[in-house]
């Protein structure tokens, strides 16, 4: 219980690590420093060096902690002048909204904005799912496959006479559960890097479902009569607000609560910050990994239901052909959940989702060719990856394949 207390206490080591981190991320020098003084205090300089030195003597560590505390205090004092990555993204979003509003008639209408938000809700929920595992220094490339297969199987079960709604949902849930546990097991226990694992399991679950479970090998499963709740999730309104938006908001609040207020959230950050250290402090890293991927898969299922409700069908071809997974990665990386793990939060996903949503909407309104859009999305993700590397540098000489 000692660990949980330390990690959850406000003065705990994670807190210190994270403030130390924020100091480090601020020095990126890519326009993030607004009106900052040129001179750096000793504390800041020490905190800056800290993450690169892993072999410090005991006294060094205590001095480092002391100085990073001092550095964090200074950051707080000057925080008004500095912007986090999310804030920068939000500013860009605002700029884009103004730009598109001026350029594109019909962009700044309430209807379009609601459509925009509703369209990105699925992306948002998926990005939250992905964000969760990326914070824990993982990645889930099988997310879209899990989403597609579990939703398609649910819809297919609903169209079978005699199958109850509960059973249909249970089938979908069990697919997600199986995928999450499988991913987590292979990554945590077999120790295959997450990229390879989830790439393979995604293809495997798709092949499996297409061959054995989806009747007649049909690629598009329509929402049947009894799937009213699915349609509600996609198209309904509560208090004048679209249900997808409400779902996105609810998931945001729940995820934010878990990440910031519970031991599980602290563990996830600790896992992403430094898996070896987290393991040494006694956090059960391997079961935790399985939990992370399972939660990710379950959120994917939720997003899949919303998507199916919106489109009134689940097209399993999205698994292979749509650039959705790229968009999800772009949201996560651009929003500030760095691929190095342990950074960012729900606010990053919200900011990233808005950015991508506005961009997609704008490109559609511009009547841009879908493949041009694809190329642009790819280039943006590439830029985000390079930017992430600049903002959160790592010793690439020690990274392993698939990290």
């Amino acid at each position, binding site marked *: 219980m000692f660990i949980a207390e330390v990690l959850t206490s406000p003065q705990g080591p994670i807190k210190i690590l994270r403030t130390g981190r924020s100091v480090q991320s601020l020095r990126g020098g890519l326009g993030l420093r607004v009106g900052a003084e040129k001179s750096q205090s000793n504390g800041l300089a020490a905190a800056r060096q800290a993450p690169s030195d892993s072999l410090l003597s005991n006294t060094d560590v205590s001095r480092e902690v002391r100085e990073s505390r001092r550095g964090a205090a200074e950051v707080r004092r000057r925080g008004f002048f500095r912007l986090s990555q999310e804030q920068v993204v939000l500013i860009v979003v605002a700029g884009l909204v103004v730009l598109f509003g001026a350029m594109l008639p019909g962009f700044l209408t309430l209807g379009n904005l609601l459509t925009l938000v509703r369209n990105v809700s699925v992306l948002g929920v998926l990005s939250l799912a992905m964000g969760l595992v990326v914070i824990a220094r993982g990645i889930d490339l099988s997310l879209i496959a899990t989403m597609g297969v579990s939703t398609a199987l649910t819809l297919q079960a609903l169209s079978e006479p005699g199958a109850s709604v509960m059973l249909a949902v249970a089938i979908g849930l069990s697919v997600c559960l199986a995928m999450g546990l499988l991913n987590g097991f292979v990554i945590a226990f077999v120790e295959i890097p997450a990229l390879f694992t989830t790439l393979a399991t995604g293809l495997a679950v798709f092949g499996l479902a297409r*061959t054995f479970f989806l009747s007649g090998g049909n690629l598009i499963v329509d929402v049947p009569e009894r799937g009213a709740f699915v349609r509600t999730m996609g198209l309904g309104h509560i208090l004048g607000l679209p249900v997808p938006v409400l779902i996105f908001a609810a998931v945001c609040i729940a995820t934010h609560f878990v990440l910031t207020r519970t031991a599980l959230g602290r563990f996830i950050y600790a896992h992403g910050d430094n898996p070896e250290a987290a393991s040494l402090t006694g956090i059960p890293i391997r079961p935790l990994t399985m939990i992370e991927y399972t939660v990710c898969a379950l959120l994917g299922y939720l997003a899949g239901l919303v998507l199916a409700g919106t489109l009134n069908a689940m097209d399993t071809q999205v698994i292979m052909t749509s650039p959705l997974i790229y968009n999800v990665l772009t949201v996560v990386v651009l929003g500030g959940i760095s691929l190095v793990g342990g950074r960012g939060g729900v606010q990053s996903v919200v900011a990233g989702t808005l950015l991508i949503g506005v961009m997609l909407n704008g490109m559609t309104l511009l009547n841009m060719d879908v493949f*041009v859009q694809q190329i642009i999305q790819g280039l943006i993700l*590439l830029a985000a990856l390079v930017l992430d590397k600049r903002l959160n540098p790592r010793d690439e000489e020690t990274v392993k*394949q698939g990290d």
Partner: protein
Amino acid sequence: MAAEVTAATVDAARWPKTWVAPRTRGRWKELRWRASAQLVLGELLEKQWMEPAIPLAVLIAVTASFVIAVPGMGEFDNVISTLRELSEFALVVIGMGIVVISGGIDLSVGSMFALNNYVALLLGLIVGLPMWLTTLLVLGLGCLMGACNGVLVAYLKAKPFLATMVALLVYRGITNLLDEHFSMSIATKGTIQDPFWTWLGTGSVLGVPTAIVFLIVVVLVGHVMLSRSRLGWHITAVGASRKAARHAGIDVERVLLSSYVFSGLLTAMAAMLYASRVNSLSPYTALGMEFTALTAAVLGGISLAGGNGTVPRALIGAATITILSKGLLLMNVGGEIYTLIQAMILLLVVGVDIKWAKNRAKAIQKIYINPTYLHFEPAPSIAPNDNSPFAINDRLSNSMPIGLGVVEGPEDVLLDAQGRLYTGDRRGWIWRFSGENFDRAEIFAKIGGMPLGMQWDKNGNLIICIGGMGLYGVDPLGRVTKLTDETNRTWYRLKDDSRLRLADDLDIAPDGKIYFSEASVRFEAHDWIEDGLEGRRNGRLICYDPATKTTRTVLKRLVFPNGVAVSHDGNSVLIGQTWLCRILRYWIAGPKKGEVEVFVENLPGYVDNINRASDGNYWVALVGIRSPVFDLAYAHPRFRRRMMKRIPRDEWLYPSMNYGCIIKITEKGEVLESYWDPTGNAHATVTSMREHDGFLYIGGLNNNRVGRIKLAGGGRP
């Protein structure tokens, strides 16, 4: 088999008349334990060639099973078309393999393939360029795309997996875009009529299809490049350890960039072969090829960790996957199942690779020591005041110490004509003590290794066995020469036994041939005691002939042969076998030449060196004394194996080496007397003794001195 004594070869009449009962019990059990699958496995896993051997075995198994199971698989036409497909796919896999060896990954190969294919046909059909020029242009395009990936990964430091995954999206998007614009205008065009194009797609060189010729050339050039050229070494070095490569002065970024360019170039070549063969304009060409190529590379044994792989391995992996896909296609298995199988293969192979790389050394260590069954009769009594020749006494306790605190571990001692004493030292030195009380110590020679048995040759050179090195000679001036460090290799043994690991003791026959023992071919010199836990026939008797400078193994498969002494008449060699507590006699001359017989067995301790005594008898050192517990453990190999798996190394049950003794044996093998130091202060372990001018000099592997006692009567042997 003639080497080892069997019950049949030992004539009962020749057994010495002693307290010893002949060894008859446990013979069958010993035979049953002699063969061991674990032994083979342990030695097999150590082999470097095991890594590519397993993928090759998989390839052969897959090929064989499909040829048998699928009708039409082995037909000539099918073989040719499979080979054509293989040559395209293998080029891509080799490119992927080079990138993986450099520590990266290239997931964009599928899209690059599609774009190259599309552009080539577009240039041929719409622009109407001659196809040789088109081919050159497309190869350039491939290099360019590879370079884009390379710049992203090497210079902009993007993660290779994600960066090339995004590149996949972008290149595929460009292909789709081209298709949108040109599909209508292409529909009205005919086909490409170009001799070069036809030759590339369906032609042949000297009867061999062009694509296969291309593949052979690329494999040869690629293999030489990767394994023999500077760039190839740099690629491997960067993949193995980027930091070490940088410290060695390698331009890591440029090497990484070049590996991606290779990948792009080879993919473009493959696309050209494909385009000329199929002539199909589709933006969906090679969908998912990156995944197939990755699976193939990994299946061929190219480690995802980087720095470990070759071009032939990529070829093996590519062939396996091609045959698999072709076979499944002929069996009418759907594409999704094929994807599923690939995904499972990838996970399985990567999992095995990762677990194996992590646990290889541990696994080998766990199964390497492989105990066998040995049967012992109850040991003769060593109780003091007993009427046995082994009765404990204190005749060594008051020995005169020589070089006390100066020498460390004098395994063997030797004296020259002037009465100077020579002894080895575990630091790899030879000491010489001279003066009245041997108080003048000097280092005679520094050889290195672990100096063990010593003897003079006719010319006054010191011949010495060095554990870990071989057989060496030191001339009177202290100059060291290597006599031999290898012998003929046993062709059927997995373990390379040509190199001498633990040359132990030697003696020189009247004809000048040097007979020396090698105690173990399976354990290094410093792990000699682990051979005792195993108790296998790992040692041998070797003969070095100084006249012809040749070395050959005389007796194979002896259990730890240790002491070697030529008999007084020069017709036989006595060989002490430590773990068996017995001495063999090997006839090197006379009517029984070539025969082996038991000279004496069931001694109370573990035999070490043997020397001739001045009175026609033999001195034998017993390095440690048997205990009933360890005798029992020798009869229970499973017990010893479990012990080695379950408990830490320093708590294992070892043969007792705490104190030993010297015994004197007659030419008939009867034991006359023994010399003991029951306190263990002066001579805890006794590994050797040497009689000289009425004195007996005593050495011990773990002792800090050489001892000397006065013998009642006696002279120089």
